[in-house]
């Protein structure tokens, strides 16, 4: 078993589609996903064309690049202007515009801005450039937090003094609750993120089910995983018996990955975090603990950014909350496209606007 092809079996896909249709649901149902990979695969495999039209799977704030605030980019851009600094980042972030420019613009102006696949690569960059400051831009959710945590731990162990971090690490369950408390957002079920849940387990969703009486299904990312999860959610909505269901049992355990959770707890504490379109959400962020504060660039070199307010027609903030679909944004496919993205949801390959543009647009 290679854990891919088996979960793309066309016959079983057909059977699941029939099962979904046989539920006979006629009223509109909104299921929200909170993972960019769910958004991408839902459209990539054409699942939106297979399920009944009244069942909408809407994209929530599941793409870390998309939910990063302009302010984060502005800070990164400002740090890139310092003398003798190397900025290191995951790829997608470079194209996101801050108030005035993007890191990609800065790179074309000759700033040393590098893209890595893994945060661990940053250690070598720091060791090989002892006379420079190296700044890693850490964005991500619970999946990424322990990987950055391990990198910070390793940097401390190896006594690397020229490596710093600008972090925007976020937690998914608090933002799910934030959305459920917004009365304008109508969601009947959550397709919960498979790889965030790999780390945190299924337990954090129990409280959400209990408090808001709506089903949460942790799902894998292959077409069969996503369709089975949609079927389970619809059945629970229909029967009014909401529960936490783990569809992705081959990877997700009830208590998550305890080793990863231990690393998170060792390096980070829980605090507020700012989300695009939502502002500050309490308890939704990971913040460096005091004993690792020497790695926090904002403590070492504090910035004072001028707040510039720019008139902005971009609806990314509303798209991220599932209030509008990308097509409803006045910029979509007019001035905002993957080649010339305006908002972060079009920048990231996991963004809702990018996925719409790439897979949904009529030729």
């Amino acid at each position, binding site marked *: 078993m290679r854990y891919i092809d088996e979960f793309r079996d066309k016959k079983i896909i057909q*059977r699941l589609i029939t099962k979904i249709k046989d539920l006979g649901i006629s009223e509109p149902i909104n299921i929200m996903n909170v993972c*960019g990979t769910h958004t991408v695969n839902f459209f990539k495999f054409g699942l939106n064309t297979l399920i009944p039209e009244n069942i909408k799977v809407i994209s929530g704030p599941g793409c870390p690049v998309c939910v990063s605030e302009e302010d984060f980019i502005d800070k990164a851009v400002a740090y890139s202007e310092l003398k003798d600094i190397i900025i290191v980042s995951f790829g997608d972030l470079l194209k996101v515009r801050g108030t005035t420019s993007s890191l990609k613009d800065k790179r074309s102006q000759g700033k040393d801005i590098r893209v890595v696949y893994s945060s661990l690569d940053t250690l070598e960059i720091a060791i090989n450039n002892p006379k420079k400051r190296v700044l890693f831009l850490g964005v991500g959710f619970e*999946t990424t937090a322990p990987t950055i945590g391990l990198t910070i731990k390793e940097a401390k162990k190896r006594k690397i003094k020229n490596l710093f971090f600008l972090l925007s690490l976020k937690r998914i369950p608090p933002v799910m609750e934030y959305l459920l408390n917004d009365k304008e957002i109508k969601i009947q079920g959550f397709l919960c993120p498979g790889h965030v849940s*790999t780390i945190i387990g299924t337990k954090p969703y129990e409280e959400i089910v209990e408090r808001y009486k709506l089903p949460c299904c942790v799902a894998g990312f292959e077409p069969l995983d996503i369709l089975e999860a949609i079927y389970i959610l619809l059945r629970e909505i229909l029967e009014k018996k909401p529960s936490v269901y783990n569809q992705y*049992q*081959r990877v997700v355990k009830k208590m998550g990955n305890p080793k990863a959770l231990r690393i998170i707890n060792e390096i980070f504490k829980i605090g507020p975090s700012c989300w695009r379109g939502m502002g500050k959400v309490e308890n939704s962020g990971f913040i460096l603990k005091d004993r690792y504060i020497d790695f926090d660039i904002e403590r070492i070199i504090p910035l004072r950014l001028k707040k510039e307010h720019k008139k902005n027609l971009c609806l990314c903030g509303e798209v991220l909350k599932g209030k509008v679909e990308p097509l409803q944004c006045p910029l979509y496919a007019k001035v905002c496209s993957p080649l010339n993205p305006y908002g972060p949801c079009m920048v990231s390959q996991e963004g809702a606007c990018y996925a719409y543009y790439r897979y949904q647009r009529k030729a």
Partner: protein
Amino acid sequence: MCLAVPMQVKRIEGGFALVSAGNLMRKVNIEMVKPLKVGDYVMVHAGFAIQKIDPQKAKDTLRIFDEIH
């Protein structure tokens, strides 16, 4: 960004393992999933193995598709 792919362990070297998927080979950190053995499948995210795949549970899921649905 939370993308993770299943890859098979080919060799283990301390805190790292050489893993493969198709023609792709990568050296990944395995601190979060130790102990591992050659032949195991792991989910790989940003250069780190974040979980071992449970082959029995995978079979169970596929069987559920066959039986219940």
